[in-house]
């Protein structure tokens, strides 16, 4: 049976890991390759790098980070942030990423999803969606792009469905309202998207405790849980999260972690 994944996410800017709250107030949290290696040893099922800086002139820095990481970390690596074209996607994959996540560029040109799925295989293509509750419309979420700075007016559930239909192999869904708050995942949001798509769903934004991870899967219908701040700040270890999931009857990969 397919095990549920626990994924630490490293937000990378100018070659360093940073973490903020609700996409703001960024703080330095270390070297990406080093952190990734530590998380892999501690039982991370996958590592996600998001280049939140994503300035084209600093693209080389990201590729260097990916390559350094891929050489010493033997768990899957997904990389995203500012990827705009098939050529950029190819460069990230060649640097050692296993999968690439598209966000702003996919909204601007949904054809990019279809083209990259055809070229690299749909399992390589993750579509990341940053969602925010629509004011005055309970049960509706709007899609924001450009690191949460621009509202697209798109409905999150519609967009997730369209992205999956176009060839996305996975949806990485972040609640902007919960990002970095440790108040728990937005479960109604997860349920709404999970029920609308046939590809795996990764829950992101709001993880504060192992119980939140359990809820994202058993109540939200997510296939994997992603978190940043609770791991970076050593609030909870990956092992503790997995132990709690296992106790709740969720199948996970248990590792005799040295770390």
């Amino acid at each position, binding site marked *: 049976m*397919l095990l549920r994944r626990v994924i630490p996410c490293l937000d990378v800017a100018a070659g360093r890991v940073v973490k903020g709250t609700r996409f703001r107030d960024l703080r330095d949290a270390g070297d990406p390759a080093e952190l990734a290696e530590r998380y892999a040893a501690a039982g991370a099922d996958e590592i996600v790098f998001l280049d939140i800086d994503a300035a084209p002139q600093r693209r080389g820095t990201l590729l260097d980070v990916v390559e350094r990481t891929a050489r010493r970390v033997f768990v899957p690596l997904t990389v995203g942030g500012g990827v705009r074209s098939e050529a950029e996607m190819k460069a990230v994959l060649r640097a050692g990423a296993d999968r690439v996540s598209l966000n702003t560029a996919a909204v601007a040109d949904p054809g990019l999803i279809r083209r990259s799925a055809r070229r690299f295989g749909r399992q390589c293509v993750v579509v990341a969606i940053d969602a925010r509750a629509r004011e005055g419309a309970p049960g509706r979420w709007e899609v924001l792009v450009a690191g949460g700075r621009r509202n697209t007016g798109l409905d999150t559930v519609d967009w997730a469905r369209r992205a999956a239909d176009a060839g996305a192999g996975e949806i990485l869904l972040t609640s902007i309202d919960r990002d970095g708050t440790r108040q728990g995942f937005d479960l109604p949001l997860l349920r709404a998207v999970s029920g609308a798509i046939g590809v795996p769903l990764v829950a992101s934004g709001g993880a504060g405790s192992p119980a939140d991870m359990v809820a994202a899967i058993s109540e939200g219908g997510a296939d994997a849980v992603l978190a940043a701040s609770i791991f970076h700040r050593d609030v909870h270890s990956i092992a503790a999260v997995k132990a709690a999931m296992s106790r709740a009857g969720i199948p996970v990969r248990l590792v005799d972690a040295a770390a």
Partner: protein
Amino acid sequence: MTTRPRLALVDYGAGNLVSVGRALEVAGAEIRAVSRGPDVDGFDGIVVPGVGASAPAMAVLRRTGLEPALREAVASGVPYLGICLGLQLVFERSDEDGAELLGLVPGVVRLLADAPRLPHIGWNAVERLREHPLFEGVKPDAPFYFVHSYAGEPRATEAALATTEHGSRFTSAVSVGRLVGVQFHPERSAEDGLRLLENYVGLVREPDRWTEVQGRRPADESAPGAVLSGAGR
């Protein structure tokens, strides 16, 4: 000190060469990426990685002369490890796009049936049907990392080495003569993955051990279209 076997890492534009190459180096091999047919000659073993669709992959193999080179190498008994798409390519045909594949192992590549979600992404138990040195030191149902929607079903049941369940059960590892293949990604499967790659490097280093494997499964030689009948010499 034991010698490091030289492995040809086949680069046809669909693989994650960095991670596969690096993991094989850690596993004790010397690696060279090859992207043209004539360059495949003279290696102790071959590794074909890759993710994605089979039709574009086969187009590249044909254009570069890799297709006949790989076929020849396998027929002459050079060990072959296929990973993910590199395994799927050894079958005859893919349902994904109707592509004609290398045809080294009788069987067809099909969409995973009854899967709750596709692609099948994540760690899943690989359950062995029989023992094989490739899995030496790996727990019987250890999880490995998968990322795919299709899998090859060998026509000869003896060719299946392990299965995995995602909705229904599919063949997740194959062995025919000196050809082995895994649908999962050992280079992304942490300790157990590195162990499996070490085991492959060990098999390349001590070719006598393949005979041992063959001896256990006489049925292979009579498999339909036993392309690999020369491989056990």
